């Protein structure tokens, strides 16, 4: 096959089409310039008030409480060996759980969407059970299966493995539920186009499917991370709360609040630890939002 310069008549096509120029700016960017109508102003006011009462003021209260003793008190509270161990354990477990469920959740979503089998509708509903279950019930379920009276002979009480398994259970639905709709909406033609261009199955997945679903995977994994970072109820039974071993940050915070010997100091310490968890959660959410913006720019 030879490729030669376009025929002289060629530009006829270009004239009507390529002069269209860039598309108008998205709605969102123009909206900022608009003067608010009274109804919109009232709505905005209500939303701000509600967010302030329910979210922003409590968060600010935690920060204020944590900062009461100044920077040194904050630093002291979060750098004790017990605190460092608990924070590291919580963050490490959350990260591991986010990664594992990012992969497993994506796989489950893929199977549900692409290879439905007999009973996959049932599985689709079962996925949500860990999400709907009260956390203390999850704790009881875990003790029943992996406790001293384990029917399978595995006692995970007081071990980090026990914490990990419990968190895997609790955070399973997140990635499945964020990836599933994206996979369902995916343009199958693009995959076939890639195949006809010579791409093998794994290559099609890596180069055509994965780039499109990565933001959804990140979303799900970050939600799983945030949930695992602060998880308390389902862990309280299986962890045995051994400092520097199986004590997670949320349990340490609870312990500080319960400490009656020096209520003012321990409340400040609890708030300091809470600020660290809060900061890590916010960082993760911001990172995912940035990833989403990149994705939105591509697909907008």
């Amino acid at each position, binding site marked *: *096959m030879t490729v030669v310069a376009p025929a002289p008549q060629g*530009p006829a096509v270009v004239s009507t089409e390529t002069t269209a120029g*860039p598309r108008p700016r998205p709605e969102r960017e123009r909206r900022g310039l608009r003067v608010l109508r009274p109804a919109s102003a009232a709505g905005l006011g209500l939303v701000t008030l509600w967010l302030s009462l329910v979210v922003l003021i409590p968060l600010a209260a935690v920060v204020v409480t944590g900062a009461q003793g100044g920077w040194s008190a904050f630093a002291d509270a979060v750098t004790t060996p017990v605190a460092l161990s608990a924070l590291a354990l919580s963050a490490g477990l959350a990260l591991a759980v986010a990664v594992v469920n990012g992969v497993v959740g994506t796989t489950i979503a893929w199977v549900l969407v692409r290879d439905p089998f007999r009973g996959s509708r049932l599985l689709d509903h079962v996925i949500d059970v860990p999400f709907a279950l009260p956390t203390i019930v999850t704790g009881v379920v875990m003790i029943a299966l992996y406790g001293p009276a384990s029917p399978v002979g595995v006692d995970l009480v007081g071990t980090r493995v026990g914490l990990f398994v419990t968190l895997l259970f609790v955070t399973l639905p997140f990635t499945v539920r964020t990836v599933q709709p994206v996979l369902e909406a995916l343009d199958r033609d693009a995959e076939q186009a890639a*195949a006809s261009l010579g791409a093998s199955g794994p290559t099609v997945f890596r180069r055509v499917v994965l780039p499109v679903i990565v933001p959804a995977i990140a979303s799900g994994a970050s939600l799983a991370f945030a949930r695992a970072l602060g998880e308390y109820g389902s862990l309280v039974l299986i962890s045995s709360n051994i400092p520097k071993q199986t004590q997670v940050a949320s349990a340490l915070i609870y312990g500080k609040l319960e400490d009656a010997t020096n209520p003012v100091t321990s409340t400040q310490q609890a708030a300091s630890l809470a600020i660290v968890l809060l900061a890590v959660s916010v960082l993760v959410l911001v990172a995912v939002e940035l990833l989403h913006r990149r994705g939105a720019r591509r*697909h907008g």
Partner: protein
Amino acid sequence: MSIQVRGLTKRFGSFVALDDVDLTVRSGTLTALLGPSGGGKTTLLRVVAGLEQADAGTVVIDDRDATRVPARRRDVGFVFQHYAPFGHLSVARNVAFGLEIRKRPKAEIAARVDELLHLVHLEAFADRLPSELSGGQRQRMALARALAVEPKVLLLDEPFGALDATVRKELRQWLRRLHDEVHVTTVFVTHDQAEALEVADEIVVVNGGRVEQVGTPDEIYDRPANEFVMRFLGPTTALGGGLVRPHDVEVLGSAEPGAVEAEVGSLRRVGFEARLVAHVPGSGDVDVLGSRSDPALRDLRPGDRVWLRAVGPVVDPSPPVPDAEGSEAAAPGEPVGVAASSRAPVRGGVPA
């Protein structure tokens, strides 16, 4: 690079999409698969591309049996109706995709992508994302992407179906010119007879999972094999027991051999056209389409007596002939195309 299809059958549940289809596409031609929706033409194209597996039959591409070859090894360029862009990649990276898969050197890829973007007039859009292009531009990008790997055959599934009328007309003329430049064996699916007649070297009329007729646009138009082909190519009217096109009916002022007597019902002028409805006793109404300056039509009044005669192809309105190959079989009124060619040797020595 030719395509040979033999005995292709494909069912979706109880629906027969392809029913024992035979087809040969000659190397270097631009062929249209023309037919109504659900007639099997897209399925045929997808089976040739390897995107669909036939239940029976063989596909031979460039003299190699490709029946069991997966799509990615068939060297077939495929263009989808809805463009199927890789939304996360720039226009240039979309075009480069097949070459990157083949691990060609970077410099070679860049040069080839430039060449192709120039060919499809998208040089200025190399760094845009597909979402920033118009429909016509996306389709040209998809075409460049398919051509990049120098496929043996190029298959286009309703390539202009999702575009508005003006862009569609421009693009089909552009496709014709492009094919004249690159000469790759090309098959495109369309349900638009004007598109097929205007662009294709050869037309394959597909209906109900079967090939109704194969021929050049002139052959298909002048010698439709059966009623289906005749009706699919435009309006028809019944005259003397056969189907003719309204503009192929000659209006005569007196009885002549082969002419049918009729009474003028109405005569309307629409722009430069004159539309006559004439009533044939014991048969029904016949539509006649002529030019408003045609002296035979100009002075007619309702109730006038006229004689009507077919001057174009006449097709028997019987069920389609099972053997679509025998296109000459269904021509009781002796179509002009056939008449002209058979007349030539007879009158060869007679000066006009």
